[in-house]
């Protein structure tokens, strides 16, 4: 049995756990703990090590989705989680401009760990306060070539679009590498 993995990362409360839960065929193995820091108590629990979801591709292949912990004090886990990933998704809460700088920092960190393909998912686009995609692109200082895709992490179709975009990107990169090698 062959296994491959993709990582879902992003700031605290960006929707990483929800994203994985929406498509995982197993109950997400989540290492959530009650939040101790008052400043972070916008939700009751947070992921301290990783979320872990699975999609069986066929008899010989399984895709694992790993969600990174959102809080900075657990960032020692990021490097471990990024080891051997196919690519990664950076989740951004479109309604929380206070997290944009953090999202950019996480993106840069993961790019430094591994030069794998990635996409940015602008989550919570169904909410009234969500920033528009083009405004987000400028705020996050994303190059026009970086895929920034609207997302609602609780919606399966939306999550599928994000994953397929990332896989398309991986495929394109493979083709480029093959052309270069030949």
């Amino acid at each position, binding site marked *: 049995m062959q296994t491959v993995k993709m990582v879902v990362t992003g700031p605290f409360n960006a929707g990483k756990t929800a994203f994985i839960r929406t498509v995982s065929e197993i109950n997400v193995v989540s290492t959530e703990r009650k939040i101790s820091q008052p400043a972070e108590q916008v939700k009751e629990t947070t992921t301290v090590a990783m979320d872990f979801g699975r999609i*069986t591709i066929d008899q010989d292949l399984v895709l694992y989705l790993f969600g990174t912990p959102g809080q900075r004090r657990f960032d020692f886990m990021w490097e471990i989680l990024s080891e*051997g990933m196919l690519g990664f998704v950076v989740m951004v809460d479109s309604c929380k401009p*206070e997290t944009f700088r953090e999202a950019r920092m996480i993106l840069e960190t993961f790019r430094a*760990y591994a030069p794998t393909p990635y996409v940015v998912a602008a989550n919570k686009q169904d909410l009234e306060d969500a920033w528009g995609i083009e405004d987000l692109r*400028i705020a996050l200082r994303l190059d026009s070539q970086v895929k920034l895709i609207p997302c609602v992490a609780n919606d*399966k179709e939306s999550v599928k679009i994000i994953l397929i975009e990332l896989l398309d990107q991986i495929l394109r990169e493979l083709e480029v590498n*093959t052309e270069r*090698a030949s």
Partner: protein
Amino acid sequence: MALKGNLRDFSLTQLLNLIHLARKNGILHLENATTKAWLGFREGKLAYGGLNLEENSLVAILYRGKRINAAHYRTIKEKSGSMSDKELGLLLVNAGYLNQQEIVQNIQVYLVRLVHRLFLWEDGNFHFENDAPLPKGKILVRINLENLIMDGTRQLRELDQLKDEIPSLDIALKFCDHPGASVRNLRLNQEEWKVISFINPKNSMKKIAEAVKLNDIEMRKIAFGLIQAGVVEMVKPDGYSAKRTINIGIPHTNPAEQTSLIKRIIQRIRSL
């Protein structure tokens, strides 16, 4: 779509940069504990603005700019009644009191000073009213935001914030392929011009700082200003490799097998 938040999290400089790059039309409303302010934009250029604490009529702007004295101010106020700024401006020009250029210049100076004051706000809510119509009676100007953005970033004094923006001086700078600003039109100081002359993907910011004799903070400030003004962008220097890279997760088989593996995953996800 909403464009709102707090200046603590998204500074006025960043907002101006966004408005400039997206060539937005509309009104940016700012509000702190004591004051409300608004700035109007047309195609990403500052067109008008004001504060709730002070009069921003043309006659008040001319008085504040010392273009008219207190006696003139009172007389014009009395006579102009409910006249709009446009009507008053026309009256002053026709009377040979001022020319059009002087009026526009005074409004521009007022707006630039207003934005400079707003740069000092560290806290306060903002929201951008997209495509909101600008007031009809006002004289609208067109102020490029690049220089205002540069001025704003010069006021950034917090090293921590600069470190967040520019995490490492090992990174190099390159000129943007499609710069938002013409370098010639930028008002750069001597040190900024020196930095500009060294910009090249081969030179890390550390190298430039050494060459120009700048300390870390000075280098970061200048680099951040140039980035915000859309003149340069950060790149890995030539020959730079990340300190630690790890294996990419695609199994080391032949390219056809790798492609097939990814296609299988795509197919499966589509079927979910």
